[in-house]
């Protein structure tokens, strides 16, 4: 059974149809990539899943429930977490606090919200440090988020999403703006997450997508023009014409 399914999901901004009747299923535990040229509507599609935008029409069934139009803070509590294409962190807070805030949000009860000292939640602090260790920032937990390099901020970006212990993880170009070296690290990281989380990945680096994905959807002008496993996608004539061009050898 798919964990999440969209049915003819559509979002228009005035005359522009950014996401056009997208129907898509993501199996529990799989890594499903969404590729497509800039402006194809991939990030808007994410924004619909996480509630940043309300869809114009269509449905989003998450775990058997229609969640279309639910506000972002509620969606987070259902277990959908995302990383952002443009790094979105809390610059003047410590790296630990950045991640801690994500673990606290997912608590069943917010006991001690306005009174207990934030450093007196040993379980949450431990989880936050664990996630930081996983992305390779364990040593830097006490630095401020603005003090680390862009590459490290991208790792933090991912850590914040992971710390929410999501059932569905949406990764919006985790490799955006990284050097080849940093990209390799990030790819290894995402590979480690595969299987442990249900992941939808937006990525431009085709080779990465082809080697990692269980399934791939190709978006073009807001519509899904092809879907399949990596081999099927590579062979798909329309995809090669619209997007892959000469990148992947026949």
């Amino acid at each position: 059974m798919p964990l999440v399914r969209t049915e003819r999901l559509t979002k228009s901004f005035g005359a522009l149809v950014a996401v056009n009747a997208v129907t898509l299923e993501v199996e529990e535990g799989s890594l499903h990539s969404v590729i497509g040229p800039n402006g194809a509507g991939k990030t808007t599609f994410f924004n619909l899943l996480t509630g940043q935008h309300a869809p114009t029409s269509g449905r989003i069934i998450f775990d058997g429930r229609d969640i279309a139009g639910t506000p972002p803070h509620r969606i987070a509590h259902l277990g959908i977490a995302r990383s952002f294409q443009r790094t979105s962190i809390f610059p003047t807070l410590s790296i630990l606090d950045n991640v801690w805030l994500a673990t606290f949000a997912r608590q069943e009860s917010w006991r001690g919200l306005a009174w207990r000292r934030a450093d007196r939640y040993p379980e949450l602090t431990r989880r936050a440090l664990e996630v930081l260790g996983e992305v390779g920032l364990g040593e830097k937990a006490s630095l401020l988020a603005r003090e680390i390099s862009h590459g490290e901020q991208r790792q933090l970006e991912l850590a914040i999403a992971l710390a929410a212990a999501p059932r569905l993880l949406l990764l919006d170009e985790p490799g955006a703006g990284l050097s080849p070296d940093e990209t390799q690290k990030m790819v290894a990281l995402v590979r480690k997450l595969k299987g442990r989380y249900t992941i939808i990945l937006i990525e431009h680096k085709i080779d990465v997508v082809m080697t990692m994905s269980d399934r791939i959807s190709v978006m073009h002008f807001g519509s899904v023009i092809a879907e399949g496993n990596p081999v099927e996608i590579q062979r798909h004539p329309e995809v090669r014409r619209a997007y892959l061009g000469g990148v992947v050898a026949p």
Partner: protein
Amino acid sequence: MTASAKAWLAILAAVVLLPVFVRHAIATEIWIFAIFGLGLNLLMGYTGLLSFGQATFFGSAAYVAGYLLKFYGINVFLALGLGIVVGAISAAAVGYLCVQRSGLYFIMLTFALNQMFYFTAYQWTTVTGGEDGMPGIPRPSVLGLDIHRPLAYYAAVALLFILSLWIMKRIVESPLGKILQAIRENELRAEALGYNVPRMKLAAFVVGGAFSGLAGVLYAMLFGIVPLESIGFVFSGNVVFATLIGGSGSLYGPVIGSFVFIWLSESVSSMWARWPLLLGVAFVIVVLFFRGGVVEAWARFWAWRAAHRAPTVAGADAPR
């Protein structure tokens, strides 16, 4: 000794020494204004919401508690409790409307609503006394203790100030404090993590309003009058001003700011009628060079000193 212990020690010392050097009424006003500033700082410094209408909560509480003190002779605890409740409720009402907007619109809304409260107080002369204010606020004894003597009232206010500071410290170090800072830093991400941003902002308003309300009642009992200005926008501006000078976003900033602001305005104003000019210059310096106010200037001074003294310390340790 930890930095926090040092700060508490400094504040205790200030509480004890201030009435020795400064007139008691002014010393009392400093701590009252500091409580007022603590409330604003939670909004402005921690949540990033520049409220230009804090006098709404200060003045409303002062009027309500003052009225009941004057005509119904309620006891001090009830008056303070009511002031806190009135401050919180008026802040909830104003905050509910304001958190729907952001940026400039937010600021203008807090200002406009402040003006609404001001003109209500101005027009409703039968209750508020309009332009003349509401005089004759008594200062009843507390548990048999007479607080009419300036020093006794000073002690009571100082005690409440320390209690307020401790409560605010707990709040800013709690998860809520972190969440509010997260909202200040990045609202979109805070929401994506699962925080209901408008509701959290409203919480900041309510807490800030409660502090303002407490300050308002103490102010009314200090001077025995609720002046119309206590609900006016100039008063709202003053607390923003004092907090910025002291250092917004740091726990002790508004305390230092209140000291600088009240002390300057009381001591310099008697010598020089154009003293606001001096405040203006101080403000420009803070905005241009020390965004973090006195607190930041202080930290920078010590960092600078440490950097310049480091070589000599190393030299002293070297073998002779």
